[in-house]
């Protein structure tokens, strides 16, 4: 079953703009992770945020977590053409493996 649900399903922006993707989930989590998948490739881990954290940064990435709303957002600032990819959130609810959402397809137009 899929725990996380990304929104929007697809997003198209101009290079230099910011991209925001959201993830909603249903049950309490231990942590939430964001992964990127370039076309035809495997997934690459971007960032992990724990349930007791509200915000984390990594380079041009900013992730927020609101456990009261059961949602997370991924912000990519100053986007580049190389950021074109699918982005997945994955949740861990305890003594279970990660569960991935369906992803957001981001297109950054040069």
């Amino acid at each position, binding site marked *: 079953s899929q725990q996380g649900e990304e929104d929007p399903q697809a997003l198209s922006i101009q290079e230099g703009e910011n991209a925001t993707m959201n993830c909603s989930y249903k049950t309490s989590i231990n942590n939430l992770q964001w992964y990127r998948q370039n076309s*035809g490739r495997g*997934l690459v881990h971007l960032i992990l945020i724990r349930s007791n954290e509200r915000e984390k940064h990594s380079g041009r990435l900013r992730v927020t977590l609101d456990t009261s709303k059961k949602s997370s957002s991924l912000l990519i600032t100053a986007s580049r053409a190389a950021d074109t990819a699918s982005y997945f959130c*994955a949740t*861990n609810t305890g003594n279970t*493996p990660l569960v991935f959402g369906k992803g957001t397809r981001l297109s950054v137009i040069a």
Partner: protein
Amino acid sequence: EAGVAQSPRYKIIEKRQSVAFWCNPISGHATLYWYQQILGQGPKLLIQFQNNGVVDDSQLPKDRFSAERLKGVDSTLKIQPAKLEDSAVYLCASSLGPGTRGETQYFGPGTRLLVL
């Protein structure tokens, strides 16, 4: 550090044939995962190994799919016989820890399977 290796990268077979995929995880990683990713969807866990033992195979269609991880290192995933709906990318991933607390997973490039 070498990443997760998978082979083959692409495979085309006819329905009812059998196929096998191979994965070599990152050295020292105890946990290995096989995922199925259908076009337009997120990865779905098929089976998780910790060392050479199965931790979770609840979503593995055991009538046609099998997997093993001999000696706790490499792993193979087999489909026999294949169905049209098995067309997907099969991803292998590994993690250092037991995978029960949502540790970071490192993915291979995947095997793209097309069943005709």
